[in-house]
């Protein structure tokens, strides 16, 4: 009876993160407007009749050139409350997105900062910044580019964006579970910064003037690491009860599984979800699901568990938040050998 048991921590929330990314991309795709250095001409005309003879006259033509608006946004892409890290972890990555919300191609300088940001319990130690060179959103060692200010400043087309990986290391000592440490990524237009409306003559795309946008030509966002010392363990046991009062694993016999989940360490594991695929060649016995001896229905409802609903052919039990050292949680269910 080889069955796999799996415990997923929804805090990592990769599905959520993916959903968020899509939304961000959608909202960023209609910002820039008319490209910098575009000429806009206007000419009026008049028609009339003079003594019964139709005439047409045109006006002069006025032309204006659209200036480059310098504008950007920086967004933290990981899921709140933050990237989980253990004390002493090195080069933990948190991801940001830089978007050029101006209307011309613009290069941006990047800078990370982790010290003395406030609103947190500890300061991570800032490491390197990497640019998501292959655009897959996942840091790949050796593939993504180490950012060197002034050397490979990302030059983004209007509405263009790039992900930036910021690495930090966690202090080895003095941290409690749930402590937060902030890190900040700041992007600054290489054309210039200043009060909104500041004009940089000839500084824009194609020699058009550049105008500093509402953000002052710079933007930043804060990302957070959350210390988690928790360790999970799950122990599974199985009892065979055959239909003749014995314990032989024959067709028709019942297999009673009991899985005990324990949280060790010093922290609290939030959003714990227990999932266990039903063994092959067995049939779940309806109504047999128990959590700490209390019966749970097989459907999704007010109680914590279901079978074959949240996940196909799988037992799912939401265990919620469990502090380290809390009483072990026992999940029990029966299947019949086919």
């Amino acid at each position, binding site marked *: 009876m080889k069955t796999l048991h799996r415990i997923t921590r929804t805090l990592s929330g990769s599905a959520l993160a993916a959903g968020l990314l899509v939304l961000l991309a959608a909202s960023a795709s209609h910002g820039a407007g008319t490209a910098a250095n575009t000429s*806009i001409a206007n*000419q009026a005309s008049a028609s009339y009749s003079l003594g019964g003879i139709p*005439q047409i006259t*045109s*006006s*002069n033509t006025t032309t*204006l*050139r659209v200036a480059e608006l310098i504008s950007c946004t920086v967004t933290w892409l990981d899921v709140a409350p933050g990237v989980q890290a253990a004390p002493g972890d090195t080069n933990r990555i948190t991801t940001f997105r830089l978007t050029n919300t101006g209307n011309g191609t613009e290069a941006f300088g990047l800078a990370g900062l982790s010290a003395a940001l406030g609103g947190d319990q500890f300061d991570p130690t800032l490491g390197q910044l990497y640019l998501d060179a292959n655009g897959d959103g996942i840091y790949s060692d050796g593939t993504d580019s180490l950012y060197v200010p002034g050397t490979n400043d990302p030059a983004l087309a209007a509405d263009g964006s790039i992900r930036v990986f910021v690495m930090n290391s966690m202090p080895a000592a003095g941290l409690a579970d749930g402590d937060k440490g902030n890190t900040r990524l700041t992007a600054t237009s290489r054309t210039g910064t200043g009060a909104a409306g500041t004009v940089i003559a000839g500084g824009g795309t194609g020699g058009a003037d550049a105008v500093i946008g509402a953000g002052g030509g710079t933007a930043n966002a804060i990302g957070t690491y959350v210390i988690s010392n928790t360790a999970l363990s799950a122990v599974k046991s199985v009892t065979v009860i055959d239909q003749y009062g014995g314990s032989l694993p024959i067709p028709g016999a019942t297999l009673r599984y009991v899985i005990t989940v324990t949280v060790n360490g010093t922290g609290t594991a939030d959003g714990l979800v227990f999932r266990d695929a039903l063994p092959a060649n067995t049939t779940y016995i309806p109504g047999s699901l128990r959590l700490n001896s209390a019966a749970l229905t097989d459907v999704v409802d007010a109680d914590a568990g279901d079978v074959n609903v949240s996940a196909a052919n799988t037992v799912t039990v939401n265990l919620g938040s469990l502090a380290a050292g809390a009483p072990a949680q026992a999940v029990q269910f029966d299947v019949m050998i086919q």
Partner: protein
Amino acid sequence: MNRILAMAVTAGLLVPALAGAQQKAAIDLRTLSQVEVTTTNAKGEKEMKRVEAARANVTPGDMVIFTTSYSSNVKKPAENVAITNPVPEHMVYVDRSAEGAGTRIEFSIDGGKTYSAPEKLIVTVGPGKTRPALAADYTHIKWTLTKPLQPGGKGSVSFRAKVK
């Protein structure tokens, strides 16, 4: 040799002569593109000023005011005077911004082929589906003078549009 020189001189003379002829149209039309800028004067008060759009730094979302002045150059009244102005490329008309004393203002949503009052403009969005036209659908604006333009008469019309 002398003949070629003479021709060149004649050609040179022709250009200003033609330009002069064009300016002698019965109705003179002058258009102006401006933006409004808020400045603070010496007393610390905010003042709204209009500056030429070509000299301003217009960026997406900015509003430009287009004003066309007309004046009669002839001793006869001009009848059925209509001034038209396309909504410039890369721009969107600002709803209810067209003005012109003594004119009937209409809009086109078909590139200037037909004009109607805003409430009569209908956009087809699919088989059998229509909706009222929005300011963003307008392609042209037309001001029709309600009375003939008398000798020496003049006036102006205007509208506003935003850079997309």
